[in-house]
């Protein structure tokens, strides 16, 4: 059933399974609440990734249960209550690993995409 939630990311063009990594990366910069994370993803990707609540919140729940992020209710800058998420040490380690894998994979993929007959 959780597969259905991932499917809705298609329209935002997100590669399957990368949402978790992006959230971790966003939280590595500073602790943030749900809305902020969505806005930040939108900003940094220059509007390419617009992640809706239906995908965002299941991802938070998943990451929290896996012990990669932890949550805390705090006041926002305009004095409202919001649930702030922050990376745990495990989350930091997972992010480092995921980033490394991502680098390797994308580098390999772009090499393949650029390849011409002469290079082989």
């Amino acid at each position: 059933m959780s597969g259905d939630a991932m499917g809705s990311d298609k329209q935002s063009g997100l590669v399957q399974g990368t949402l978790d990594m992006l959230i971790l990366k966003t939280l590595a910069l500073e602790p943030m609440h749900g809305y902020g994370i969505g806005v930040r993803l939108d900003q940094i990707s220059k509007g390419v990734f617009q992640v809706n609540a239906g995908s965002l919140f299941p991802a938070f729940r998943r990451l929290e249960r896996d012990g990669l992020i932890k949550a805390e209710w705090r006041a926002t800058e305009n004095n409202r209550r919001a649930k702030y998420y922050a990376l745990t040490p495990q989350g930091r380690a997972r992010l480092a690993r995921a980033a490394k894998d991502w680098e390797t994979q994308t580098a390999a993929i772009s090499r393949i995409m650029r390849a011409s007959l002469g290079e082989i």
Partner: protein
Amino acid sequence: MRPFLAGLRALLGRHRLEQDLDDELNAYLEATVEQNLAAGMSHDEAVRAARLTVGNIEAAKDAVRDVGWESRLESLWHDVRHALRGLRRSPGFTAAAILTLALGIGINTALFSVVNGLLLRTLPVTAPEELVVLSTRGAIEQGFPAGWTYPMWDQVRKRTDIFNGAIAWSVFPERFDLAQGGESQFVDGLFVGGNFFDELGVAPLLGRTLRVDEEILGSVRSHVAVISYGFWQRRFGGAADVVGRSLLVNRVPVTIVGVSPPEFFGPEVGRAFDIALPVGAAPDVLSDNRWGRPDGFSYLAVMLRLKHGQSGEETVALLRGLHRQFVEASMGPGELWGPNHDAQLRDTFALLPAATGTSELRRNYSQSIVAILAIAMLVLLIACANIANLFQARAASRHLEISTRLAIGASRARIVQQVLVESLVLSAIGAASGLLLAVWGSRLLVASLSTWFDRVVLDVSLDWRVLAFAAAMSAATALLFGIMPAIFASRVAPGAAMKVGSVRSGRAGVFRVRGGLIAAQVAMSLVLLVAAGLLIRSFSELAAVPLGFDSDRTLVVRVNASRAMSGPGNRPDLYQRLVDALVAVPGVTHAAASLNTPVNRGATLVADLTVPGGVPIAQHDQRVVVNYVTPGWFEAYGVVLRQGRAFDGRDSARSMPVIVASDAFVQRFLSDRPAVGSLVSDMLDAPSRRDVPKTIVGVVGDVVDQSLRNKPPPTVYIPLAQFMQHPFAGTPFMSVPEASLTVRAATGATPQLGRGVAAALTAIEPNLSFSFQLLADQVDAARHQERLVAWLSGLFALLALVLAAVGLYGVTSYAVARRRTEIGIRMALGAQRHDVVGLAIRNTIFMTMCGIFVGLTAAGAVTRYLQALLFGISPLDLISFLAAPLLLVLVALLACYVPARRAATVDPMNALRCE
């Protein structure tokens, strides 16, 4: 582990978690609205836009909830409650299904409990998997437990360099008489080595267990006993001061030193000891000083505990290397023993795994009980078909509900899950009630295994295996009867129910499936009926086996003269005097004594004989059964005298040695040569001892021996008065402490007769002990197993027949109800009554015929697995294969006739008005 804990936390703190999620999503929504306001939208616009970007809040919540496994558990729990509600709404269906399942699963679990107790359970001792029974190749081939003499045991036990430890106990069931004298009170006894309890790791509940020095033969210190928990409760009411009390065992006083724990029944599965005595007490208690001698009986079973990490093969190889040494050390030089010694040397050691103990019951019953379990499983399958039918009908009636739910967005997987959960709930309730039935049923079954001779005790309490079996049964049945309704439910078209009249469509397929179920049910019932027919016919064949004697109005009195005043040498004389006294008892027409009686479950005396000038025969065919009898024995048993004469007063200790031979003996040794007057030599007498050939003076009809399944063996009878002529007579080997007195009454063996007999016996010899048994009961006990198997299979076949009839009835009724309108129209148009009846039952009869065809084929293929249980008939016995289908067709016709008649009485106008 982490997802599990997180799930658990989520389940427990569900309320708080929900609140949290609500708050968070609201905060998200508000933040979006604020953002939109900041971008210059009006309030309403901002809210609408926010709602659009956030999407369906409820769907998002669902997605969040679905992250963990606990959400699935929740939906399962929801389905369970839904199922329970649904079942409560149709109590008739629920009661019928649960009752059927409880019965089916209960019977199967009861049988499995017995299989578990008999075949699978390990002994309740320390590290049972290390235990092996010391046996020989020959004993294993013949399927008998190996017995060892005390000197042999003494040799083996010392070799703890080869194994970790050894224990010994009496291999034959021992009955201890607790009475002072007169009529015996038997309990189950056991002789054990001194280290028996310690080596097995069985700690006493009270007092102590036995000590190694108490094993020394004949020492007074050995007159101590460990009693079982059951005996302690039964005899002493669980008295706390039982240790130190005295008991009379075979009139020898012994002191109770301890009580064994309740779970320990002894080394043999199926039997439980009441009193365990050290082997050292055996010579006194059995008044038999041949213990400890190399020519004593091979009386001890020996179990070894393998060294850690050493396999049975390695151990047996080491033991085989020592075999000759053991035999010579325990028997002395070979010249003394001749062929017997060589035979001992040839028959080398073998080991049998003994984690589950040893068991005569297992040898006798494991095949029958597994066959009965297979039959019971078939009954359960048939029951499942019935429930599947009921379920199917129910699912069909819920067509509307299901299609509506599909239309409003339920997933098919969810619907299928719901139907399966419903069947699981049903079968789980059935299995739970079945377990109760099984606890009671398995005890009943064990009780019915007991005969006058064997008190069968088997631990059939619930353990993880039985519970797992019941759970597996319940899951399997749920799948069997739930899968089709589930498939059916998943095929319903969404919203189909809303189209007028379509409720009726799509049922033809369902009806075909139900027809298939009926055919399968009929086929399985037929296999069962054939199997039951074969087993019942086997029993009736066995019951018809000519015994060779007449068991009516006959009492067998087993007397023990070991404490009698007259010495061992005078016992044949004593027995003759007892017989003379019994003939004088009013109401007695015949009385006679013999060492053995037929079908008495006791030991049989054998000898290797030759007839000089007779038919040359191989050595292994020389063994015959020998019995010593007084004059009048043949008359008392009603054995037919064919030629010559029976024994009479002329045959005394000093007269010419004579024998009476049986038909089978004459057949084998003399063929058609004249029997009366021929001489017979005992092979054992021949080389060195008093070789006096015996003259055949008469020939009598055959008498069955211990088992009715075997042909009567060649038998010779020798006058008891000439017993002292036996080469071993008078030696401890042949001191005949016991004999059987057979009394035939004029009019039924009444209690009064027993009293008269007891008085007459005590008058002659006050120190005699004795027990009574009706000969007819002994004959019954010899057929016990076959009777039980026939009875159980018959019962299950009847159950199958009833289930099949109910199934057929149900399907036909359904068909008739479904076609009510059609029938009404046909009748209105002038169809005849028999046309209508034919219409209603044609399909069912066709399915029944298909089932019978399949069933006959299947029965033909599987009945050969019953071969070992059959007697006197072939696995393809024509009568069984004809009677079973006939009976089934008859029952099927009857089951169809009732609903068909109802169809024929349909009032056309009524039927049409209904629509």
